[in-house]
């Protein structure tokens, strides 16, 4: 009889994990000596990492391509605005505003997950537009004008910047760790099965709907957290920006270029995206057009992204989510 055991974590992966842990500590200490500009840029990077990791969870693991997850970015920011208005301390509202989105995403999943692939993508987009219109009906938002999180101005700017930075760092770390743990557990095997062959997965007892729903809700909460953090650092809430399609384009770019369906890919993608933005951001629209073209070329010619290229070179994927099985005679 052949028994299977899961292979131990390879040496190289351990080095990456140890490096990531060290980076986390260094980033944690950075506000003590980093300039305000660096802290702001890194905060944005962590927000991008949260977005990329959660969108990858959805597209790379559950096979659901959404172009409407800006709905949750905007909703998270809106929730935070409303909570702060109701008297919740702003730094608590960053987390709480993101978490309550689960209550909206859960029933929503029951509806949207029944749609076919292409329909799902656009229906999510329509939903994002619908939610934006609904939010704009709230008199507090003042239609197109939007609102500012004026409460935050009461805090010392340095203290405010550093707190948001640390929260973004911790949340980004948490999102990475949670998705890693999740995909290493039972859910990981199930999503892998669904992505490879949904029908077959269903026939061996994987509840494709349950798995997809969990991932959908997680991705919604991730995007909402990115939304609250973004609002906290940008202060101004404008419905057109908060619910803008550009969020989806960014997520798509980061995940595609980094490597769809890998754990390292979206993080690499976010770092690359942030770097490009710092270097080429001044080119404005031509920079954005370039992003679109690069995303398109990656989708067509390097569908597995940078991580895909890396794993071809190394012979295997670094920190893979695929369960590596060792046959073991007993």
């Amino acid at each position, binding site marked *: 009889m052949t028994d299977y055991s899961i292979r131990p974590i390879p040496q190289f992966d351990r080095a990456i994990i140890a490096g990531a842990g060290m980076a986390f500590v260094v980033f944690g200490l950075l506000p003590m000596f980093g300039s305000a500009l660096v802290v702001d840029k890194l905060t944005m990077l962590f927000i991008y990492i949260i977005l990329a990791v959660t969108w990858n969870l959805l597209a790379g693991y559950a096979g659901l391509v959404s172009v409407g997850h800006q709905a949750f970015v905007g909703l998270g920011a809106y929730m935070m605005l409303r909570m702060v208005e109701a008297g919740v301390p702003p730094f608590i509202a960053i987390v709480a505003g993101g978490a309550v989105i689960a209550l909206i995403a859960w029933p929503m999943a029951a509806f949207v997950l029944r749609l076919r692939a292409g329909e799902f993508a656009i229906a999510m*987009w*329509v939903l994002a537009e619908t939610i934006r219109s609904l939010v704009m009906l709230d008199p507090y938002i003042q239609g197109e004008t939007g609102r500012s999180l004026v409460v935050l101005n009461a805090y010392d700017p340095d203290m405010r910047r550093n707190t948001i930075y640390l929260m973004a760092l911790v949340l980004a770390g948490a999102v990475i760790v949670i998705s890693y743990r999740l995909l290493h557990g039972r859910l990981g095997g199930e999503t892998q099965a669904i992505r490879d062959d949904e029908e077959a997965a269903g026939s061996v007892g994987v509840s494709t709907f349950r798995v997809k729903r969990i991932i959908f809700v997680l991705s919604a909460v991730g995007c909402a957290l990115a939304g609250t953090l973004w609002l906290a650092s940008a202060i101004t809430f404008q419905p057109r920006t908060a619910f803008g399609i550009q969020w989806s384009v960014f997520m798509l770019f980061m995940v595609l270029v980094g490597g769809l369906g890998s754990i390292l890919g979206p993080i690499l993608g976010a770092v690359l995206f942030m770097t490009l933005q710092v270097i080429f951001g001044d080119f404005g629209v031509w920079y954005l057009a370039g992003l679109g073209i*690069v995303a398109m070329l990656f989708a067509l010619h390097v569908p597995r992204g940078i991580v895909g290229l890396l794993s071809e070179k190394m012979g295997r994927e670094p920190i893979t989510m695929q369960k590596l099985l060792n046959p073991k005679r007993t």
Partner: protein
Amino acid sequence: MFEQLLQAILQGALLGGYYAIIAAGLSLMFGVVRFINLAHGDLSILGALITLSLVQILGLPVLAAIAVMLPLMAVIGWLMHMFLFERAMKGGFLLPILVTIGLGAALQNGMFGIWGSDTRSLGASIGSLAWSSWYLPGGIILGKLPVLIFGTAVIVIGALHLMLKRTGLGRAIRATASDPEAAELCGVDARQVHRAAAAIAVGLAAIAGVFLAMRAQITPYSGPAQLIFAFEAVVIGGIGSLGGTLIGGIILGLSQTLGGLISAQMSLLSGHLVFLGVLIWRICREEKLAHGGWRAGLKAVLGLSSKRRKLASGDLS
């Protein structure tokens, strides 16, 4: 009050003509090539901006500009299919969505780079057509341009229908839509048919874009909203049916103008809500057919029935 309502209904129905033109292209690609082009709306704006430049910079008459622009856009559609979409379609269902949304972002920002951020309109170039109206008894005002757009929509969709039913190309398109390999075995070059369908679809989008620029202001970022309207019209009318697309467009136009009676913001929102309502109704109907009874269908969609899910998942423990 009654007159206002009647006016809104007429305007909504006429607006539906515009939606039907842009939706027909989307529907054709969806039905024949099984491809959703998320840059459809941006291509429509591209067609409009090219026409605008031909009219305002080269000084061509509007009709001549359209006559130059249409073949150009059709060629663009053909080439896009040849170089982008065919390759994307080989990569499963994820790639077409990823590629076309990337294309959309490139088009929007590229157009912004070329044409700038100003809102533009063809309204000034079409003389009195832009604002003149017929005054019907009962105080009803009927704009000449909306009537022209609606008439064009009926003609375009009718012509498309006849082309599909009566011509060799049309038969080849329908055969390929139904079974690409069997069509190949009958001597039809399925790839060329797909490219032709893409060319027609982009041409239709461009016509719609020109009409949009005639009746309203456009910017390089107007495309995504047009895609959403087109998609809503296609889904409301039922995928793969041209007549349905016209009806879907009219229903969408009606919902928007009737919603607009309540408040300006309700206009777009009510269109979205009707679309979502139709989608929910369709899912309920599928569930009803699969599990017996409307109540079961509704419960399944609302996520109330735990039994169904357990049975469906095979999770009987």
